C-alpha cells in the first residue's frame, strides 16, 4: 500500500444525541482517488465534513476519536491551517457571487490576508484554472462575475479556487449531483488528472461514478464503515453481504 496521508482512528460523530458515525477506522493512501459511497443518511457526507472539521459548525454537532493528517492530529491543529491544507468542493457550485472569476480563484489568499504580487496572482489564477481545465473557456472573461458561468463551469471554478490554495487533499461532496451528464463527465476526467498532485476523497451516491473514477472505495452503511478496499476488488468481489446487496442494487 502507498504512503498513507490520512489516518482515521475510532472516529465517532454526533448531532446532539444522535450518533451519525460509529467507530470509523481507515487509512487513506496518498495521490489516489477514494470514493465514499452508501445510501443516503449513511454518514458518508458527515465523514467527509469531519475531515476538514466543517461538521462542528452545525450547532450540537461534535466528534470523538482521532484523525491524523501526516501524523498530525487535526483536532489539535489550528482550524485555519487545517482547512488551507484540505480543500473542499461542494454539492452545488458556490462561487462567491460578489467576486469576479479572477477574484474567486485567489479568494483564499485575499480573504486570508496573504498578499501576492500582481504577477504571482496572474500566474496562480492561470495555473489553477488550467488545472481545473477551465482556462480556455474563461481566459477572456476573467473579470466577469463567476455566477454568469454555466453550472459545470461554476463547479470547475470552485475546483480552481480550492486548487489555488495548493492543498494536500481535496474533498468532493457529490460534486456532479447538480450537473448535466456532459458537465459531470468533464469533472470526472478532471479528477483523474488531479490525482497526480492531490489526494482526492469524493462522496458519491452514483455507483458507476465510484467504479469509474476511484482507486479505492469505502462503503458506509448506517454510520458504519462496512468495507474499504481497492475499487476493483470491492466491486468484483465484495467481502460483506451489505456491500454486495448495495452494489447489486438490492437496496439504496
Amino acid at each position, binding site marked *: 500500500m502507498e504512503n498513507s496521508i490520512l489516518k482515521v482512528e475510532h472516529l465517532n460523530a454526533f448531532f446532539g444525541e444522535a450518533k451519525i458515525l460509529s467507530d470509523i477506522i481507515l487509512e487513506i493512501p496518498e495521490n489516489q482517488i477514494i470514493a465514499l459511497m452508501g445510501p443516503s443518511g449513511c454518514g458518508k457526507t458527515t465523514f467527509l465534513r469531519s475531515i*476538514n472539521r*466543517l461538521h462542528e*459548525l452545525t*450547532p450540537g454537532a461534535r466528534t470523538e476519536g482521532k484523525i491524523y493528517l501526516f501524523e498530525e492530529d487535526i483536532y489539535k491543529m489550528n*482550524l*485555519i*491551517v*487545517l*482547512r*488551507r*491544507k*484540505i*480543500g*473542499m468542493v*461542494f*454539492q*452545488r457550485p*458556490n462561487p*462567491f*457571487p*460578489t467576486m469576479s472569476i479572477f477574484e474567486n480563484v485567489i*479568494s*483564499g489568499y485575499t*480573504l*486570508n*490576508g496573504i498578499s501576492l504580487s500582481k504577477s504571482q496572482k496572474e500566474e496562480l489564477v492561470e495555473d489553477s484554472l488550467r488545472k481545473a481545465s477551465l482556462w480556455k473557456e474563461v481566459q477572456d472573461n476573467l473579470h466577469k462575475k463567476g*455566477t454568469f458561468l454555466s453550472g459545470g463551469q461554476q463547479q470547475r471554478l*470552485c475546483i480552481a*479556487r*480550492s486548487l489555488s*490554495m495548493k492543498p494536500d487533499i481535496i*474533498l468532493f461532496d457529490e460534486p456532479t449531483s447538480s450537473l448535466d451528464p456532459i458537465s459531470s463527465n468533464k469533472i470526472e476526467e478532471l479528477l483523474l488528472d488531479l490525482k497526480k498532485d492531490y489526494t482526492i476523497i469524493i462522496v458519491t451516491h452514483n455507483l458507476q461514478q465510484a467504479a469509474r473514477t476511484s482507486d479505492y472505495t469505502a462503503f458506509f452503511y448506517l454510520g458504519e464503515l462496512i468495507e474499504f478496499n481497492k475499487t476493483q476488488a470491492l466491486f468484483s468481489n465484495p467481502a460483506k453481504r451489505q456491500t454486495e446487496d448495495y452494489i447489486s442494487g438490492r437496496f439504496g
Partner: protein
Amino acid sequence: MDKAIKLRFYKDRIFKSGIILLTVLSTLPLLLILFYIVKQGITSINWDFFINLPKPVGEKGGGIINALIGSGIIVFCASLMAIPFGALAGLYLSEYNRDKLAYWVGLCVDVLQGIPSIVLGIIIYLWVVKPTGHFSALSGSIALAIMMLPPIIKSTEETLKLIPVTIKEASLALGVPYYKTILRIILPMGLNGILSGSILSISRVAGETAPLLFTAFGNPFINTNILKPMSSLPLLIYNYAGSAYEDWHKLAWGASFVLIMSILFLNLVTKILERRWRIQF
C-alpha cells in the same frame, strides 16, 4: 339555467364588485392627501423658502431653513447610531437563529417595534434630557435611532438568512476565519437588504414628531450644535399647522410637500435597491 344557480352567480358578481369598490376607496385617502399637499405645497416652494427662517406673524414669506438643517442633522446622527448596530444585531439573529438568547432578542425586537413613539420620547427625556438638564438634537437622534433599529435588524436578518449556507462553508473550507467570512463574503452579499432596510427606516423616522417633542424640542433659529435644541420638518409642521394664520399654514404646506417628496424619494430608492441589486446565488 336554474334560478338558484343564477342567484349564486349574481351574488358572486356583486361580492367581487364590492371588494373592488372598497379597495379603490381605500386608496382614495392617499391620492387625496398627495393631491392637496402638491397643490398647496408647490405654490409655497421657491428659492427663498429653502434659505430663509420662518417670519413672525403678519410678515409675508419666510422659509424653513432651520427645520431642513435640523431634520438633516437629527436623522443623520440617528442613522449613524442605528445602522451599524442594527446590521450587527441582524447578523447576530441570522447567524445564531437556533440560540435560546437569539429567540429572546427576536422577541425584544418585535416589542421595540410596537412601542408607541411618544413613549420613546418620554424614555429619552428621562435618560438624556433630564440628566443633562436641557433639550438637545442629540437626544432626539437617540430616540429616532431606537425607532430605526427594528426595521434595520429585521431586513438584515431576512436578507442574510436567504444566503445559502454553502457560500459560508466554501469560505470556511478555504481556511478563511469566521469573522472575515462574515465581513468580506456574507455582509457584502446582504448589502442590498441592509441598505434598503436602512433607507426605509430613515424614511419612516424622518416624519416622526412625537419622539422629538420632549427631546429635540424645536428651535425657531438655525442651530447646528447637536447639544442644543433643534427644529425639524415634522416639528415645524406641527407647530404651524395648529395656528390660525394663513401664512403659517402655507409654510406648513410647503414643509409637508418637502417632507413627503423626500420620503417618497427614499421609498423609491428602497424599491430600486430591492429589485436591481439582488445578487444571484
